[in-house]
């Protein structure tokens, strides 16, 4: 599974860093970025973070998931 943060949409809510702290962190520009450890995260955890993004900035594309 590929996780994409649309930086033009990301509004710095940082909710994803709460719900999936091993997947997302905020960078210096106040935008979410995907961490290397994301590969080990469950699809459910990532889905929860994407669902809860108030800016609708997180997209998941189908692929070899591990969750």
């Amino acid at each position: 599974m590929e996780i994409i943060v649309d930086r033009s949409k990301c509004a710095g809510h940082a909710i994803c860093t709460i719900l999936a702290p091993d997947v997302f962190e905020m960078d210096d520009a106040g935008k979410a970025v995907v961490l290397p450890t994301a590969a080990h995260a469950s699809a459910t955890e990532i889905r929860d973070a994407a669902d809860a993004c108030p800016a609708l900035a997180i997209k998941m594309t189908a692929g070899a998931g591990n969750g």
Partner: protein
Amino acid sequence: MASGTVIVGASLAGIRTAQDLRREGYDGPITLVGEEPERPYDRPPLSKGFLSGAVAPQELSLCSDDEIGSAAVELVLGARAVGVDVDRRIVGLADGETIGYDNLVIATGAACIRPPWYREIAGVHELRTLADARALRSTLTAVNSLVVVGGGFVGTEVAATARSMGIDVTMVLREAAPLAPALGDAVAQAVSDLHRGRGVAVHHSSDVAALLGDQAVEGVRLADGTVVAAEAVLVAVGVRPSVQWLAGTPFYDPRGVGVTGSGRAGERVWAAGDVVRSSKGHWAAAIADAKSVAADIAGRSGRSPSIEMPDYFWSDQYSHKVQVLGRVGENATLTPIVGSLESMSFVGVYGTDSAITGALLIDQPRHLGRMRQLVSVGASVATCRAKVA
């Protein structure tokens, strides 16, 4: 007509319930009924980016054609529900059609409150729907002055957006400062100062007595006789749950639909989002409601998320992002942890010295994760200071 799950209200709570039902493995028919002609869309940008033109209409969409197709959700748009027959389990529509249900989800949201002096004349706006936002945007591109009645989130955000577009803005609010009931007096004062600093005239502790103008609005007259001239007026004095269509059912309550913890309102009936009596009207609450309702309909008690998320809401004021976690209140003391309110770079906590109940952050998103943990455990102020610096 087909049964299955009928969701009335093509709102955030409505579409998310449909999507979550499919994720829960629910395989019955799903019908989503919406009064507006639009596909489900996201409301928060309506008072911000959409109004200024920074956010295009298609960016508001909460679902793509593919998602609707793959989730097999039948959309019935431009259809106003007018009643429910709970014995026969049918929803009646304004055009006389009926839709049968096995499970009914009430997600009709809320509508703007119209004060007694409200008149539908040119230049007078309210803001709840996409149609409202289109009309307001069109007006804002054509006027030089705007009165915003109401100092809540919609009022302050529209005031900020309009001011940023170069419009002369006057805010009229009942409270001593904008957002005071939601965020407490200290934050309200900082928000008031922010608006005044940008050139917004703020009439606090004021009530509107009348709209001025015959065919088109010319301003407002306040209760103390003050006249504020303006080419446009936005009335944003709050919302009430959209429950009139439920009159005569056991779920009808002007304060909103009463529900249990899993969103149940009665036999085979659930409610989600702003229409719920205890709802605070927050985006995050609507998606949480949708998740619980979908899990309950699908026959599960609801997967507890790996990480508990406290209540969350936010407001954009000019370039500043105000984020609130947990519980706050008008009389709650706000204790600074990082920065200052005056600088609009701030982390503060609500509650007592020994146990915080909530946190407010201004332009400090990096601290949100840590503050969530501290709010969840009800940490002390000293612990907050030690952990967040």
